[in-house]
């Protein structure tokens, strides 16, 4: 398929702007807008599109589900992705019963998830061909810093959490990336962040360019993680890599971080695979950071690039 044509039926102009920007960023050439149910049906009667993004909440009397039934009368096979401000299970069930390709509730960055789905539709005839976006890799960076290890991937997740001031973090590894639930700065709510596998090469390159192999040397407001998420998650990731871990979770509680997954465990000299569950209190975190840093330095004794600050010290 050449660049797909996508019809967006948004709740309002702001939502259209976000979706349109994400779609164009994903390489969608033509994005059209229809306002409400009647305009959508009129548009589909006049023009062609390859996919439709339909909001559950719409201006006018008909909601997205009702509009979908109207769409089905004209284009029974049109792939429709429903987006919604509501996170309710009821809306999700209604949408799937009505035959949507997928249902994406509003959360931070949901427009990128939608753009990804449209790209999947576009790529469907050429299944198996993985499209990797062009990457800007900084020069003179050690190759080991750019590998998609847990150390490097968790590090960039931590970096983003630090940059935007998130706290109370829960990380789940899912097929193709990580889902992070965290509370944003100055808010008691919880947001969902998605880190998709293909993003990591660029995110890791960016993090390495900014901080190189360096260790953070300033204090962070949480008592559990004295130097923030980037260093903590990097140290956890280092340990996970050493244990050849898979399917990991990281949960931050009040005075405790819990790391789980499946990996190699050593018991009385025998190495086998099994469930991993590590608990880190604040003292353990300091030891973990120190140990991971020292071992990294021994394994890669080159001079760090970027803002290296030397050995971690408990603050």
């Amino acid at each position: 398929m050449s660049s797909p044509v996508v019809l967006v039926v948004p709740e309002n102009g702001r939502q259209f702007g976000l979706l349109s920007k994400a779609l164009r960023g994903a390489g969608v050439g033509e994005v059209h807008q229809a306002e409400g149910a009647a305009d959508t049906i009129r548009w589909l009667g006049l023009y062609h599109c390859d996919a439709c993004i339909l909001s559950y909440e719409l201006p006018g009397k008909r909601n997205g589900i009702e509009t979908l039934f109207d769409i089905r009368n004209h284009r029974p096979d049109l792939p429709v992705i429903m987006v919604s401000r509501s996170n309710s299970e009821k809306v999700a069930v209604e949408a799937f019963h009505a035959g949507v390709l997928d249902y994406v509730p509003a959360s931070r960055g949901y427009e990128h998830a939608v753009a990804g789905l449209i790209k999947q539709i576009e790529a469907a005839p050429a299944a198996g061909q993985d499209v990797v976006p062009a990457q800007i890799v900084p020069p003179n960076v050690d190759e080991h810093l750019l590998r998609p290890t847990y150390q490097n991937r968790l590090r960039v997740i931590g970096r983003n959490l630090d940059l935007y001031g998130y706290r109370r973090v829960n990380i789940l590894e899912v097929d193709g990336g990580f889902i992070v639930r965290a509370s944003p700065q100055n808010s008691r709510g919880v947001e969902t962040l998605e880190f998709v596998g293909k993003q990591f090469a660029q995110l890791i390159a960016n993090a390495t360019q900014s901080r190189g192999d360096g260790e953070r040397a300033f204090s962070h407001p949480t008592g559990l993680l004295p130097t923030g998420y980037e260093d903590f998650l990097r140290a956890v990731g280092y340990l996970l890599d050493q244990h050849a871990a898979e399917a990991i979770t990281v949960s931050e509680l009040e005075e405790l971080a819990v790391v789980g997954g499946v990996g190699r465990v050593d018991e009385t000299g025998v190495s086998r695979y099994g469930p991993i569950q590590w608990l880190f209190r604040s003292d353990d975190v300091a030891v973990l950071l120190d140990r991971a840093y020292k071992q990294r330095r021994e394994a890669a004794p080159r001079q760090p690039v970027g803002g290296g600050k030397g050995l971690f010290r408990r603050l």
Partner: protein
Amino acid sequence: MSMAISQTSLRVLLVEDNPDHVLLIRRAIRDLGGEHNVDTVNDGEHAITHLETTDLFPDLILLDINMPGYSGFDVLAWLRDSPRHKHIPVVMLTSSEAGSDVARAYELGASGYIPKPSHYQDLRALLNNTMLYWSAMRRHNVVPVTEADNE
């Protein structure tokens, strides 16, 4: 170093009486890709009958706690008492946030739990991680240790 995980297909038994939750859970598992096979029964009694009569044991049971007739706890207790079934991992599905339910589930030998949240996205993420976890456990032939093994 961990790269993208190649999932081992799982045979899952879903024990859930709410048809909406069945739809969402089946859909979420289907969206994971792979070739997971999901059998569904809608109460505890049918779950036990199914497990007693089948030769194809599930690799994972997703078990609702609150069901008419036998509760999820009853089914879990039966499983852990049954020599043929006690090693099947069981992840409890709970719609309550009650810590006591979770604690009781672990006491009875549950391998984990998934709160059935009102957010579909959360449910999908939790199921995704659970399936990855048990795929890895199966690939490495890890059998969960239950309380019964420790006695």
